[in-house]
C-alpha cells in the first residue's frame, strides 16, 4: 500500500506544485499551494511525523496560507502582467533549472549513500510527546529563540504596515 500512497500523493504534490507556478492568477496559485501542503502532510504522516503533519495542516496550510490569500484579496491582485523584462531570467533561467534538476538527480543517483526504506509505522518517534520532550530539553534554546522571531515578525509587520508613523 505504501508505495501507492506515496506515488499518489507525490503526484498530487508535484502536480499542484507545478500548478502553483503555472497558474496566472495568484489566488489559484495559493490554492494549489494549499493542496501541495496538504499532500505533503500526508507524506509526513507516512514518514511517521504525526506532529508535523498536524502542524503542517494547521500552521502552514491554515494560518500562513490564509494570510497569503488575505493579502491577495486585500491587494486585489489580478492576473499577472505578461510583459516580462528580464531577458536573463528567460534565456538563462529555464536551462539553468533543467541543469539544476539534472545535476541534483545525477548526484543523488551516484552519490547518495545506501538509504533504507520507509514503511508506514516503522518509526514512531514523531509524536507530540517526543517532539515536545525534545523541544523542552535538547532544543530548548532554539525553541525559546524562535519566540524572538515571532516577535520580530510582529514588530516588523507593525513597522511596515501600520497606517502612519507619528
Amino acid at each position: 500500500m505504501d508505495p501507492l500512497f506515496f506515488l499518489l500523493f507525490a503526484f498530487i504534490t508535484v502536480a499542484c506544485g507545478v500548478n502553483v507556478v503555472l497558474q496566472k492568477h495568484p489566488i489559484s496559485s495559493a490554492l494549489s499551494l494549499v493542496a501541495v501542503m496538504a499532500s505533503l502532510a500526508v507524506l509526513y504522516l507516512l514518514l511517521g511525523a504525526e506532529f508535523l503533519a498536524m502542524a503542517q495542516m494547521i500552521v502552514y496550510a491554515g494560518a500562513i496560507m490564509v494570510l497569503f490569500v488575505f493579502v491577495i484579496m486585500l491587494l486585489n491582485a489580478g492576473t499577472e502582467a505578461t510583459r516580462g523584462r528580464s531577458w536573463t531570467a528567460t534565456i538563462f533561467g529555464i536551462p539553468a533549472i533543467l541543469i539544476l534538476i539534472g545535476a541534483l538527480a545525477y548526484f543523488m543517483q551516484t552519490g547518495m549513500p545506501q538509504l533504507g526504506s520507509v514503511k508506514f509505522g516503522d518509526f514512531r518517534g514523531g509524536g507530540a510527546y517526543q517532539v515536545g520532550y525534545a523541544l523542552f530539553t535538547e532544543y530548548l534554546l532554539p525553541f525559546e529563540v524562535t519566540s524572538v522571531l515571532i516577535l520580530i515578525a510582529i514588530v516588523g509587520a507593525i513597522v511596515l504596515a501600520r497606517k502612519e508613523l507619528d
Partner: protein
Amino acid sequence: MDPAQIAGILKQGAVPTSWYLALSAVLFVIGVAGFVLRRNIITVFMCIELMLNAVNLSFIAFAHEHKQVSGHLFAFFVMVVAAAEAAVGLAIILTVFRNRSTLNIDEIDSLKN
C-alpha cells in the same frame, strides 16, 4: 531504476527513502523555477514557501532514515521561520504595493546599475 525494481518495491510495500528525497528535490526545483519565472510578487513569495516545504520533506525523510526526532524539530523551526517570513514578507509587499500600485516584480527595478 528499471521497471523491475519498481515492481519489486511495490510488491514489498516499503518506499525507498530516496524517493522522498527525489520528490523533495523536484519540489525544490519547482519552487526555484517559480521564483525565477513568475512575475507576481506574491506568487514568487509562494514559490519560496514551496522551496521551504521541499526542504522540510527532506528533513523529515532523513529523520526517518536516522530514526531521530531532531529532523522533525528542524522542520518545525523551519515552519516557524516561514511563518515569520510570511508576516514580514507580506508586510513588505504591502508597502511596496502602496507606494507603486503594482505587484509586477519586473517593475520594481529603480535601483540598478
